[in-house]
């Protein structure tokens, strides 16, 4: 009989776009050209730039999910914020971003111990989803209230 954690793992690892109700990381093909170029230059992505930019249909790399740092950078850039520092950890990350000429904020996403069983890919998805759905909105609220 499969353990509960195996069942949860199976539930969380479906091809669904969500994990425990949180959005998974987008595909590389969905990223802006600027972020792709940054990721190639930074060594996060390997492969011919031309095949990545524009995400040629059926291209295996373009259909992969964005690395966590790239996905966070892309998401924040979409909201007009520039990532200054990204601090990864196995089950957490912190990101410092700039929201004004000299104004910065550091936010983090931390996985609870109850999700220790997740695979590295699912962990990255959960950290991303938790950041964009839970952590960042509360930070944005505080930033708006402060400014």
């Amino acid at each position, binding site marked *: 009989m499969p353990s509960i954690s195996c069942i949860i793992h199976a539930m969380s690892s479906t091809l669904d776009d969500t994990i425990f109700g949180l959005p998974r990381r987008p595909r590389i093909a969905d990223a802006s050209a600027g972020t792709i170029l940054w990721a190639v230059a930074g*060594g996060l992505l390997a492969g011919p730039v031309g095949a990545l930019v524009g995400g040629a249909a059926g291209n295996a790399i373009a259909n992969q999910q964005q690395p966590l740092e790239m996905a966070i950078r892309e998401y924040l850039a979409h909201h007009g914020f520039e990532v*200054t*520092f990204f601090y990864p950890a196995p089950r957490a990350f*912190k990101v*410092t971003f700039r929201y*004004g000429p*000299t*104004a*910065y*904020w*550091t936010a983090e996403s931390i996985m609870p111990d109850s999700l220790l069983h997740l695979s590295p890919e699912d962990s990255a998805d959960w950290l991303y989803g938790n950041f964009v759905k839970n952590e960042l909105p509360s930070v944005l609220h*505080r*930033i708006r209230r*402060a400014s």
Partner: protein
Amino acid sequence: MSLDEAISRLEALITEVRQASLVDEKTALGSPLALRNEERLINEGKSDFNVIVFGDLNDFKQLNDEHTHDAGDVGIKRVGEIINEMIIVDLEAKAFRQGGDEFVILLKQDSVERFLSVSSALGNILFSHKDQDLQTAMSLGYAFSDGKTSFSDLLGRAEAACQIAKVQGDGVCVKWTDETKLNPLIRLSERCRNCGARTTCNIAQLNAPPRLKCCPSCGEEF
């Protein structure tokens, strides 16, 4: 993949790694390795730069301790941006983060006056982190190359001048002279037996008392 292709890919990779290793990831200034490369050129007389400036942030540990290392990193980043805008671009200088909160700037002799006119901006670097208004500041020392002194010794002179600048205040830039050598700063430190506070200060050696007298926190004699 042919052997030639594999070799050229490997060479391209080595070039990428080498370039990345020359850039400091927190500030985009030069890395310690890039500084070592410049050091070699200066020691071989092949560099255009003949003024070595050393600066470090004042009370940086306090910034880290009171406002987290995240805020400290932002402070380092802001310093790098200001050095880049005001010194590297405008004065055609080179700048490096040597490690921690220590920066080294290389100037050409004819840009020293302009450098001194803008360096006070490094005495009040403002930024906010998590809606807290923060400030950091640098004091600097510099030394001219005489063509006979090694880079390492020149950097030591600039550091000694920086220690004097720190006593004089934020944003101060002090030139190393023979007097700096004859009357260097020494560090005196005492722990108060009454309140436990540690007091540390830098004092010019010739004027220095044998030891500190009173605790500035509680007023008791050490």
